């Protein structure tokens, strides 16, 4: 029974040969039926046609019997799998099931295979993602608590007073930009930045890191019905929806894990360039409108205005 086998009782080589033999058998049976369906057409006399047909038919039947004999020979070589298959407790589910009412074992197997595949793919994805560092904070992951040096500076836990001070200083930096800070939901600061009479920006922070921004028009309502800052609803205007997307890009662009206050300052400087959102033409095409939108993109270094489709 065991003949160069990997698992006890199953001859794998004979197994693969048997599968090939099944395929050959299938193709020869198909040929028989095709022959019956198509008949013979290329002989002139009826007798000639009949003879040719009989010859072809016999030949295909012979090939069928040959393949069947080969398959039978191989199947005797394959052998039975061992009875001691280590299925443990889950294998007991497979004994005497009522398949249509309780397909437990097959579902269990499927779930197991699926979760294995998921784990494998997740491993691949994390390997690829780790190649690009995406962490904006300075915390180190994976260092166990025992080995972590005690005086590790972490910019994720800053005293709220420090955050308030930084924001107040930035508020005083630009005259046309005013920043209001509030903490309605725990320790994360929520800023309402009003830029001239052009737009309002709601910035949700996590200690000194900017988490999310929403840009809305000057005349839009930024509060919910209870008077709290509405941090979820989007602007009604397409131009401000576009600027919100750009602001999100900006907060991901300006990254400096060790000095988050510089990051906030650069972000606010970038945001301030939107004071001329409706006045500045695009630096590339010279026009004001592109698909009904003014130049909404501000270059990160030069702060020049571009249309979203015109930017390099």
């Amino acid at each position, binding site marked *: 029974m065991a003949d160069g086998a990997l698992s006890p009782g199953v001859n794998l080589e004979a197994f693969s040969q048997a599968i090939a033999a099944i395929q050959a058998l299938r193709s020869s049976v198909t040929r028989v039926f095709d022959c019956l369906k198509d008949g013979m057409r290329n002989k002139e006399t009826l007798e000639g046609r009949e003879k040719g047909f009989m010859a072809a038919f016999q030949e295909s039947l012979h090939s069928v019997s040959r393949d069947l004999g080969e398959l039978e020979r191989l199947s005797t070589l394959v052998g039975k799998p061992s009875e001691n298959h280590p299925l443990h407790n889950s294998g007991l589910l497979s004994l005497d099931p009522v398949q249509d009412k309780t397909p437990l074992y097959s579902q269990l197997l499927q779930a197991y295979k699926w979760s294995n595949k998921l784990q494998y793919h997740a491993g691949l994805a994390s390997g690829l993602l780790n190649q690009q560092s995406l962490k904006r904070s300075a915390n180190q992951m994976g260092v166990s608590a025992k080995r972590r040096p005690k005086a590790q500076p972490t910019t994720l836990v800053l005293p709220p007073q420090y955050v308030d001070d930084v924001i107040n200083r930035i508020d005083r930096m630009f005259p046309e930009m005013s920043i209001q800070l509030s903490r309605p939901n725990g320790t994360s600061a929520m800023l309402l930045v009003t830029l001239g*009479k052009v737009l309002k920006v709601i910035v949700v922070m996590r200690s000194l890191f900017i988490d999310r921004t929403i840009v809305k*028009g000057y005349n839009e309502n930024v509060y919910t019905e209870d008077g709290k800052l509405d941090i979820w609803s989007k602007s009604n*205007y*397409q131009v401000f929806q576009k600027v919100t997307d750009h602001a999100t890009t900006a907060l991901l662009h300006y990254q400096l894990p060790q000095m988050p206050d510089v990051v906030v300052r650069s972000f606010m400087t970038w945001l301030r360039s939107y004071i001329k959102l409706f006045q500045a033409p695009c630096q590339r095409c010279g026009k*004001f*409108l592109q698909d*009904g939108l003014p130049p909404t993109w501000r270059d990160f270094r030069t702060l020049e205005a571009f249309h979203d489709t015109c930017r390099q």
Partner: protein
Amino acid sequence: MGVTCVSQVPVAEGKSVQQTVELLARRLEALGADKQGTFGVDCETYHTAGAIGTQGQTGKLMYVMHNSEYPLSCFALFENGPCLVADANFDTLMVKLKGFFQNAKANKIESRGTRYQYCDFLVKLGTVTMGPSARGISVEVEYCPCVIANDCWNLLMEFMQSFMGSHTPGIPSVFGAKHDSVYSPGDTMVQYMELFNKIRKQQQVPVAGIR
């Protein structure tokens, strides 16, 4: 309320008012605008009656206007004076003030038409009618996100040029007075009032048959 510019488009050579409106509508739809219902702006004129004793000076004209964009409001304005934004019940109040303000019913003028939306722009193409006759075409273009008039004039003009071509108007006079204050619906009504006055003074458009 975004910055709005109200202007008049002259009737095309050899075409009727309706055909010109249709021409503009087609150009707008070719740009990609969507039709979004109808609009209506109307204006009634009231003379201040001499009963108050105004020492012989001609009574001032007061205009009471309605805008379908603000269905619950009524706008009352003097020619160079302030604009009052009131509740819709103001009309009944005017009836009660019959002794002081007399309605010049023949001067009622209105503009009705379709509303189009293109990205953040709102365009209203209307036929101005006085009584039974069509007198002209009004085009109102609003850029909703901006509230400072002088900021987005160039943007508005570029948009208007794309479908109005050479009939693009110059900067409205109300913009000059606004400086940096927030644009309000009253300013739109002032523009409509000026437009209606201009159309009233124009010669009646020859009513051409449908070609």
